[in-house]
């Protein structure tokens, strides 16, 4: 099975306190730790496991700039056969539809049976997979948390729905699936693995390579634009205990006893 995984490099919010630049039109990016979007990493692992069972190849593609190459190398160190960096200044300012349009053009250059994305990016909206499927006119399933390859060009997939229930579906190939975190246990990637792929060339693709009309992508085509960032009003907000650790512990115990009752 030929599998394409669409991935994105994002600031790791579990490792970062996000601050805004003074003008509010971006976040402070200088000190941020970036990594592959968590759900995308699960998608790559899932692709590798499928290929291990039924054969085939895994390609990982990202739309971005030179700095995004590092996530492609990381996923190649995990075992992906090929990376693809889709990059062009004309792509800047694209909205979700624009990114999906770029990916559609890339998909049509190859022959993929299955296309995976992460369910959602840290700075995104759970949108690219569903849009890409609609542009390609492929079937789509979101929030996928298990995949079984069936005979006859079909998959059996489960979707994570409310309350821990799983919605089981059969879906025809080719299709697009958005992968939920927790579907598998992504393998560890060590420095040694990354060094081994450090010199493997990663092909780049520009708008002209993919035959993308510049009026369909980029800022000019975007129907959705971010105006600014702001720090949300903190609602009611917690009363922050500012004592020593011992004082805080005493206070927490009093509160727990008063509100919940201790044994």
């Amino acid at each position, binding site marked *: 099975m030929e599998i394409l995984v669409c991935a994105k490099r994002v600031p790791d919010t579990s490792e970062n306190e996000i601050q805004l630049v003074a003008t509010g039109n971006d976040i402070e990016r200088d000190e941020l730790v970036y990594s592959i979007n968590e759900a995308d990493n699960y998608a790559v692992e899932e692709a590798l496991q499928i290929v291990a069972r039924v054969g085939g190849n895994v390609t990982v593609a990202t739309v971005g700039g030179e700095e995004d190459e590092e996530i492609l190398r990381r996923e190649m160190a995990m075992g992906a056969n090929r990376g693809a960096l889709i990059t062009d200044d004309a792509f800047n300012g694209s909205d979700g*539809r624009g990114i999906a349009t770029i990916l559609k053009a890339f998909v049509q250059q190859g022959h993929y049976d299955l296309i995976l994305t992460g369910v959602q990016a840290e700075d995104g909206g759970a949108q690219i997979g*569903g849009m890409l499927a609609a542009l390609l006119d492929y079937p789509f399933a979101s929030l996928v948390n298990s995949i079984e390859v069936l005979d006859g060009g079909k998959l059996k997939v489960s979707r994570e729905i409310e309350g821990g229930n799983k919605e089981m579906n059969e879906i025809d190939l080719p299709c697009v699936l958005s992968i939920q975190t927790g579907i598998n246990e992504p393998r560890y990637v060590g420095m040694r693995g990354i060094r081994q792929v450090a010199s493997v060339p990663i092909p780049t693709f520009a708008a002209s390579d993919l035959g993308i009309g510049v009026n369909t992508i980029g800022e000019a085509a975007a129907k959705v634009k971010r105006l600014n960032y*702001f720090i949300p009003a903190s609602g009611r907000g*917690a009363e922050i205990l500012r004592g020593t650790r011992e004082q805080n512990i005493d206070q*927490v115990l009093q509160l*727990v006893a008063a509100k*919940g009752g*201790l044994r």
Partner: protein
Amino acid sequence: MPRIFCSIVHNAGVPDDSAFELAAAARKIDPASSPTAILTGWGANLDAACNALGAFYPETWKIANQALAYPNAELVRQALLRVLPGNSIVLVAHEHFGIDLAPGLSIKLNSAFVSDVLDVVGVEGASLNLVRQEFGGQVSAHVLCDITAGAVVTIRPGAFKAGQPAQADRLVVDKSNETGTLTARRRYLETVAPEAGDVDITKHNILVSIGRGIQEKDNVVIAQELADALGAAVSCSRPVVDAKWMEKSRQVGSSGKTVKPKVYLACGISGAFQHLAGIKGSPFLIAINKNPKAPIFQVADVGIVDDILEFLPALTEKVRELQHVA
């Protein structure tokens, strides 16, 4: 102003709570609007759901089709595409069905798409100014969405308060004949319930709930020791289950369990809305997190900025000490 449609999720004849929140969102987009509800389904359940909406929606469009008895997003999309007027604004709840339906619907309608919206600033010229969150809820963003060709917008559950039912007259319009034959390349098979876990976290008054801040599986015992000392249970947020440090049955959230404890100790939990959606009954919420910017501090009653790997063992020690004295 374009016409606003709200795509309604319903189950066993009862509209989801989001149905009323979508009506509130529609009125915030256009206070003069009378949003139209649009429901797909089959049989008596569909009719019951349509009738239950009346007070909030002056007009409800009903699409009855046996193929829509289960809400398969691919089939629902086909049905909606055949009845929706051009340039409509379509509101959908941002949950598992909306995530399945909405992005592709926007492509097929050739309209703009904005997901997981928390608030509406208003209409500005040909655009809609909307508020959403990024980076795990640490920052919000204003987003301008060009509605010249309509828009599909998904609305975060719980973000809009359902208004008062106002409409006395109501109209259910049957659109079933306009959809034609529906065919899908994805077929619903069955729904599988989760396995019961060893501990029922929904039955405890005090929950010691851990998140990514617990850092590794071997540290879960720190929370368990505190829970044992307090007579509590250990629950967790999604990253802990994703990492296989705890069973799915311990997860609090929209894709896990809904809990109603008296006290909820959120330990190293950032406070994603999907997690908060599983905490009901307004428990006393104490948050302990290293990151002073963690969104959990916005909703907690009391917050402590500290490292749970040091704070929790010290807390356990103190509880044991007091019990020993008693």
